């Protein structure tokens, strides 16, 4: 496998994730975009570990997955709160957290 193909794919996914965060107005879609950026990072880390063999990839990946999981926990909590209080999920309409 050629390194540069995987790196290019990781960069593309990361760019899509970052662009999605910037272009989207929906709270949930923005968080999903961050998830895309995170998996691009995990792929890039694994690719470089595969080709260089340096570093502890398991610890790094587990910590990244833990971050992604905790982000989902916060996402669901916010989403449920916003839905229950009938607050719009359009972030451009959010002015303050209080109703």
């Amino acid at each position, binding site marked *: *496998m*050629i*390194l*540069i*193909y*995987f*790196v*290019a*794919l990781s*960069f*593309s*996914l*990361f*760019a*899509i*994730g*970052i*662009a*999605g965060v*910037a*272009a*989207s*107005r*929906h709270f*949930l*879609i923005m968080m*999903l*975009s961050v*998830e*895309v950026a995170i*998996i691009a990072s*995990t*792929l890039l880390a*694994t*690719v470089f*570990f*595969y*080709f*260089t*063999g340096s570093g502890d*990839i*398991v610890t790094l*990946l*587990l910590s990244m*997955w833990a971050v*992604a*999981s905790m982000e*989902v*926990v916060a*996402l*669901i909590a916010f*989403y*449920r709160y916003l*839905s*229950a209080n009938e607050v*719009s*999920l*359009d972030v451009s309409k959010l002015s303050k957290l209080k109703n």
Partner: protein
Amino acid sequence: MDYVLLFAAVATLEVISAILIFAFRNVLHSVLALSMTFLFNSVLFLALQQTMLALIQLFIMVGGVSTYIFVGVASSGLSKFKHTSFLALAIMAPILIVAYATNLFYIGQGTAVQQNELSGPMIKASLSSDTGTLYIIAFVLFATGVSSIVLLKGIGAKR
């Protein structure tokens, strides 16, 4: 050459899945697209001979994260509005890709492949033969779970 074609197919599907997150108006469908992105990413881990990491990716991201999002999103009302500016996405994504791609010129292509404790022949003998089977089992389980969610939602919508 076969590996390159396989990589190209999986990479294309992964990028399409990532873009479909923004294309669907229904957020549940966007979460489905995210799950597919995770799935194809785990397949790429297999291509890097990281079978254990692919399995963990499948369990954590598809089985854990995606399922949790499904439950959280599907259990409450969904807002449907035009949430993504495709023009902004189409402009920013290529610019970012080009910006990151400039670093590719500094990466050598003749780097040797390394092995670690989680790849190919380095996995303990008792586990290496089962990792592929475990992956297939996990894949089938999660595919069944996601499919049933979609099916149940479709049945509920008709009623």
